[in-house]
């Protein structure tokens, strides 16, 4: 019968018409009075009495709350997380970058109290204006010094600000992604809630105790030299 297929099709659209939307408002979501009160941590009545200005705004539909997008912890984003203390300036990341956007200049002469001499980084620039976030540099890093970040909202108006220098990387928040870092997944590290402050916690091995370190790097070394 002609029209039967059309009717069945319209039933599908009708069912989807009452479905809750899959799209979300970003970066801010409009909320009404109840939503605004919930955001402020008050019950709606108290919100209405206590903050009448905000309440009128919310009733008029002008109140907004920021939205957080659901992301996988393995998300390859900017900005990069870099632990300078873990880096030995081997330049593996610069070699494996398909675009050649990592610049490294190193000089010998860094003296670590426990680990002896190593190379010191002078320049470590990542030009994320040309980066495609493939993650090959992170995969190449043998000492887990470089990690992908989890954010994606660091847009700027100036191109030069897209070059991540050593100072920028050191000052950035350490929220590493678990891309190619199985140790974070084993420890159930959540980059959206926690940060890594100590560079020892970013490694793939457990942190040795201070006693072990002293024994390994100070006591044995001195005895061997004698």
């Amino acid at each position: 019968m002609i029209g039967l297929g059309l009717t069945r099709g319209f039933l599908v659209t009708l069912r989807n018409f009452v479905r809750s939307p899959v799209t979300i408002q970003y970066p801010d979501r409009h909320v009404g009075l109840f939503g605004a009160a919930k955001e402020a941590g008050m019950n709606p009545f108290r919100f209405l009495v206590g903050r009448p200005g905000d309440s009128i705004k919310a009733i008029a539909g002008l109140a907004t709350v920021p939205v957080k997008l659901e992301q996988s912890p393995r998300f390859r984003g900017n900005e990069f997380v870099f632990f300078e203390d873990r880096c030995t300036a081997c330049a593996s990341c610069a070699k494996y970058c398909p675009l050649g956007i990592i610049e490294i200049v190193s000089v010998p002469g860094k003296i670590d109290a426990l680990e002896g001499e190593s190379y010191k980084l002078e320049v470590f620039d990542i030009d994320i204006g040309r980066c495609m976030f493939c993650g090959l540099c992170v995969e190449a890093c043998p000492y887990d010094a470089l990690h992908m970040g989890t954010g994606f909202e660091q847009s700027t108006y100036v191109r030069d600000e897209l070059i991540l220098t050593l100072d920028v990387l050191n000052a950035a928040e350490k929220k590493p992604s678990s891309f190619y870092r199985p140790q974070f997944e084993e420890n159930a590290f959540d980059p959206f809630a926690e940060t890594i402050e100590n560079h020892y916690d970013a490694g793939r091995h457990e942190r040795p105790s201070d006693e072990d370190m002293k024994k390994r790097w100070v006591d044995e070394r001195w005895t061997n030299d004698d």
Partner: protein
Amino acid sequence: MAIKTQPVTVNLGPQHPSTHGVFRLRVMFDGEEIVDVEPIFGYLHRGSEKLAEERTYTQIITLTDRMDYVSSMLNNQAYMLAVEKLAGIEPTPRGVWLRMIASELQRIASHLVATGFLLQDLGALGTPLIYAMRERENILDLFEMLCGARITTSYLRPGGVFMDAPKEFWPALDRELVDIVNTLDELEKYLSGNEIVFSRTKGTAVLPPEMLINASITGPMLRASGVDWDLRHRNPYDYYDRIQFKRILHTASDNYARYWVRIQEARESVVIIRQCVEQIEPGEVRPSFDEVPHLIRPPKGDAYVAIESSKGELGFYLVSDGGIAPYRMHVRAPSLINLTLLREMLIGGLFGDLFVSFGSIDLNMGEVDR
């Protein structure tokens, strides 16, 4: 009394929403009938094959993502099989199962995009496209769990994949497979019996199977004409020989048959993924760095491997001179070769069928121009 008409030449594109990218068609109309068609492409040429000559074998994966950007996992798989054949690398079993799951998910996503945009070209503005894209988003979320990116995946490495799937991937995959079947049911209920879709797609742009074979056209376009040619069955790569699946065939060879074949193939992909999940075995996902280092140097020689991509036979031809980068890389791009019958499809047809026929090829300009 017949009205005298004069042929009119119209330029469609390159900036046209229905050309699936930057593609230009110079069409000559006589009244409403198409008299002549001249396709002009190359606007998206990025020189991927030349760029590959100065990159190492691992770095080229990032280039293959950007060839057919709606089925990047399949491009990764085809390229990796070629590298493994060239360098003689034995892949690890778990890595192979994981990349089969990823590539079948990608095939479903690609077919959903093809269906959605075909209906968009028919004039169903938005609604079926959103239904298809809604499901594709969930598949891309699974990719984000697997490899951290949604489109430019770069998931595969020589000998497997770079990282095992996280724990939360498997329950999410189970849920997603049910959702995919529901969405395909919904799309079929919505469209497969729809009289408007019937009248617009049935009997338009019919191509005889002999002509398709002569033009070396592959993929759903060929199977819609009744030719049983699927490389997963004919020349099994990876572990497709351990998997039972139906080959989807239709004999009409018109626009509706191409749409129908894609929807049914997406259903079969769900069956394949279920079998992969059953047969997957624990173990390493890639060979150790002693066997396959970051920087591989395949021996002198060449290798050609073709897989059944979502659009047809996708082949990678690599020539090695013993160095760290290939001497030459050539891609047999199914989109480009499926485009060759465009004139035969369109000439003699009506203006209204132009974009429907064009959309039923399911081509991707990133792959045509590379």
